[in-house]
């Protein structure tokens, strides 16, 4: 610490007692709370051995569930990237009545319980729902089928891209876009050549978050899917099913794979986060 000659009252002697106790307690808490469970699953899978590991991941139900998760995730990323950028553009660059209210609604998926989210879609798209009965008359099944699972995933991941792009867009201003416009660029050209490069890292971060949440979503998808094996069972639903069937080895193996996947996403995110300055870290 700095010495200060003009000080009349003595500066208290810097003791390291608080620093060491606090650091020690925080590290212990972190290890018990966060790291120990990671160790737990690693130990369990290693104890089961390679044979069980390979058997569990090569079972048809497991493969099907991971494939389904992959396709739902790709679809959710595709749709929510387009609509997320669109929402961000509208909320940052336009002004209209009710905008603040709508902007607040975009955060709602963060706050709603996944089970309630899934239930909302049953009420809307279920056989007796407002839109469900209409779709039903054309023989299109949404609930207990793939479309419902995609919709539920879209709902829980809706805020990510929009919320990541908005602050970048607001920071960036409109000067360069106006310049491009004056120089004769069309709106479309301006978007591709000026706006998109400027929001690039915010967008990548938002997509990574969408990816992580999509592969991990459980509650909302469980409620709308009916969890039919080899049909509407995603990876997380597969884990749940294996666990409730007392097939612990299967549940542990699939869990470890998902954990490794999410861990890799976390690392990608840390790299992307260094590239962008503005925006939220998570949620």
């Amino acid at each position, binding site marked *: 610490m700095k010495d200060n000659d003009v000080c009349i009252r003595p500066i208290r002697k810097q003791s390291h007692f608080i620093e060491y106790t606090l650091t020690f307690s925080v590290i212990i808490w972190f290890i018990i709370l966060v790291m120990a469970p990671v160790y737990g699953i690693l130990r369990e899978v290693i104890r089961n051995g390679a044979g069980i590991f390979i058997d569990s991941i090569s079972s048809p139900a497991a493969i099907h569930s991971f494939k389904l998760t992959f396709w739902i995730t790709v679809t959710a990323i595709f749709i929510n990237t387009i609509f997320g950028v669109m929402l961000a553009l509208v909320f940052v660059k336009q002004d209209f009545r009710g905008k603040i209210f709508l902007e607040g609604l975009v955060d709602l998926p963060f706050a709603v319980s996944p089970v309630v989210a899934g239930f909302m879609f049953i009420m809307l798209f279920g056989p007796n729902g407002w839109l469900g009965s209409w779709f039903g008359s054309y023989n299109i099944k949404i609930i207990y089928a793939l479309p419902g699972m995609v919709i539920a995933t879209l709902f829980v991941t809706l805020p990510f891209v929009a919320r990541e792009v908005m602050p970048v867009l607001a920071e960036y201003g409109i000067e360069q876009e106006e310049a491009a416009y004056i120089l004769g660029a069309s709106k479309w050209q301006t978007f591709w050549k000026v706006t998109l490069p400027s929001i690039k890292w915010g967008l990548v971060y938002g997509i990574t978050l969408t990816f*992580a949440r999509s592969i991990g979503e459980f509650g909302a998808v469980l409620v709308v899917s009916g969890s039919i094996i080899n049909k509407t069972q995603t990876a997380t639903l597969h884990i749940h099913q294996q666990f409730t069937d007392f097939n612990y080895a299967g549940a542990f193996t699939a869990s470890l794979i998902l954990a490794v996947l999410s861990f890799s996403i976390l690392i990608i995110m840390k790299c992307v986060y260094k590239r962008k300055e503005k925006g939220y870290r998570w949620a």
Partner: protein
Amino acid sequence: MSVNKGDLTLRSLSLFYIGMLIILPILAITSEAFKGGLQNLWANIVSTQALYSFRLTLIAAFIIVLINIFTGTATAWVLVRYRFPLKDLMDALIDLPFAIPTVVTGIMLVTLYGPMSAAGGFLERRGIEIMFAKPGIILALLFVTFPFIVRSVQPVLLEMEPDMEEAAKTLGATPFTTFRRVVLPTLAPSILTGAALSFSRALGEFGSIAIVAGNIPMKTQVASVYIYGEIESCNNQGALGLSVVLLFFSFAVLTFMNILQARSRRYER
């Protein structure tokens, strides 16, 4: 601002998307809930099992928020102010609970504290149940909400200039007084934001608790698991009651956070 055709198209498409994914589902569930009459809805909310699960959820949420306020602030403080080995690694791993799917969280806790594990067996012989009991719920919630307060306090601490604290110290304040009178008032809004996020997450959490707590009515059944059970047994009316209550709390937390944000923006100016 003049509105041209392109802007109007974008705005209509955005409205359509929010309308389909957020507004219509909320309208559908609330109208369905109130269709059977207010009395019917109320009866579903205060039915013994529903009320028990909701009370359990609220109490658990309050407990973990209280714990998180201390551990989260302390973690952020240690990460920003002190140096120790592997600090950067720990800083990166704080987000792990957000990245790991909630079902996987539940499974991980089972491998660690389940009856067949060493720690779980040890505790069980001493009569302490963790899995399929209330401590499991608390553990799962602490895990999934751990990053919220750390991540909302950390940036504020990073930006805080040390001159105020140094001034307090030169004036003879103890470290505790400095923390209480100088640091805490600056951190309070970010601690509250993190606490609100933890609270709302704890009220709605499903995946990890469904695995860890089992589904024992009047013992370990939290609100979201109760709602799921009612949907599964095709009792939509029973599920609607608590769903509406949870939705109400979601709106309340969002409003609270917006007010908090508006206030901190006013102070910045």
